[in-house]
């Protein structure tokens, strides 16, 4: 493409030169050529002017040799090699940067299943307390100067006809001490009923310190007609409760249980008790 423009540019340059009063050495031969009428160079120049636009004119005095867009600017072989080298390096860097960007995007998408896998293997599963086992219970020391009142609440879903109530209204515990509490449930109907319960702890922030060792929740409990049973809850409050600055004013914790009826074929999305399974009425005690 550069070659095509060359004659047109040259003609144009010489014609423009003639018009501009620049103190540059003129080439009389070129001027005379321009002045001759009907010269093909003039028409080519006009064609070039029309196509390129008049703003090209100021640079014409320098660019006597037509430059194609991609040729290196200097004609010196050493600097040209250096420019080639820079261009190649730029391309490499650009490739690396683009690859990193794509890699980051892919990593952000892959992070979701990977994190899930990590949680499954290490068993952290979103819970903060990692060392949460029977060793902790064994070694924990009751904080005797911090007495907390735990009140009990019992609720029943409307469709469940059990009489469900706590057997003590409150209990005073200290953090680090295991405690036992009882609920009582009676089935006054003439049919066996299967219930399943969940619990709630108020205030919410204290709920993370409330650890149940054993209870009757999240598993189906079957009551025969006219049967009445005691349901114990064995729990403790984590000793770190006493060291949490947000818990300084907390003296009352309310444990609230709610029973629902477990119907056949009705699965309840309860927390990962049996290894993140959905509980269905088919599972037994």
């Amino acid at each position, binding site marked *: 493409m550069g070659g095509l423009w060359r004659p047109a540019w040259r003609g144009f340059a010489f014609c423009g030169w003639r018009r501009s009063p620049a103190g540059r050495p003129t080439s009389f031969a070129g001027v005379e050529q321009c002045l001759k009428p009907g010269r093909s160079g003039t028409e080519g120049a006009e064609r070039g002017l029309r196509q390129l636009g008049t703003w090209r004119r100021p640079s014409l005095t320098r660019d006597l040799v037509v430059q194609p867009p991609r040729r290196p600017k200097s004609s010196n072989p050493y600097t040209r090699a250096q420019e080639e080298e820079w261009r190649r390096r730029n391309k490499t860097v650009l490739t690396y940067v683009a690859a990193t960007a794509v890699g980051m995007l892919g990593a952000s998408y892959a992070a979701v299943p990977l994190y899930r896998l990590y949680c499954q293997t290490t068993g952290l599963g*979103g*819970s903060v307390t990692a060392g*949460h*086992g*029977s060793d902790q*219970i*064994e070694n*924990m020391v*009751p904080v*005797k100067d911090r007495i907390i009142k735990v009140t009990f609440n019992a609720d029943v879903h409307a469709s469940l006809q059990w009489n469900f109530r706590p*057997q*003590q*209204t*409150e*209990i*005073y*515990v*200290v953090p680090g*001490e*295991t*405690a*036992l509490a*009882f609920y009582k449930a009676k089935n006054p109907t003439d049919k066996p009923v299967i219930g399943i319960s*969940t*619990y*709630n*702890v108020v205030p*919410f922030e204290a*709920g993370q310190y409330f*650890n*149940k*060792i*054993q*209870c*009757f*929740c*999240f*598993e189906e*409990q*079957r*009551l*025969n007609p006219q*049967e009445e*049973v*005691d*349901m*114990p809850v*064995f729990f*403790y409050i984590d000793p770190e409760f006493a060291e949490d600055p947000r818990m300084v004013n907390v003296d009352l914790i309310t444990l609230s249980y709610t029973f629902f009826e477990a119907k056949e074929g009705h699965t309840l999305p*309860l*927390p*990962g*008790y049996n290894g993140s399974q959905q509980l269905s009425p088919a599972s037994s*005690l």
Partner: protein
Amino acid sequence: MSTAMNFGTKSFQPRPPDKGSFPLDHFGECTRFKEKFLKCLRENNFENGLCRYESKEYLECRMERQLMAQEPLEKLGFGDLADGKADRR
């Protein structure tokens, strides 16, 4: 569960119990121990620390009758009571 479904507020996450669920005592085998424990609580103004011996007995009853997995008492937080009823605060 929190009833107000506000976006951004953390809702309560119930956690499963550490050792699972108590099997139901359908035949009332440990009811006597439970009554003793509740009587102790009522007498002591519902202070759990004073009735730990009774709660230990209730759990031992459950363990004997296969209503609870056998565990050494230390693991249930009764380490101080395992040496006899010395510690009564």
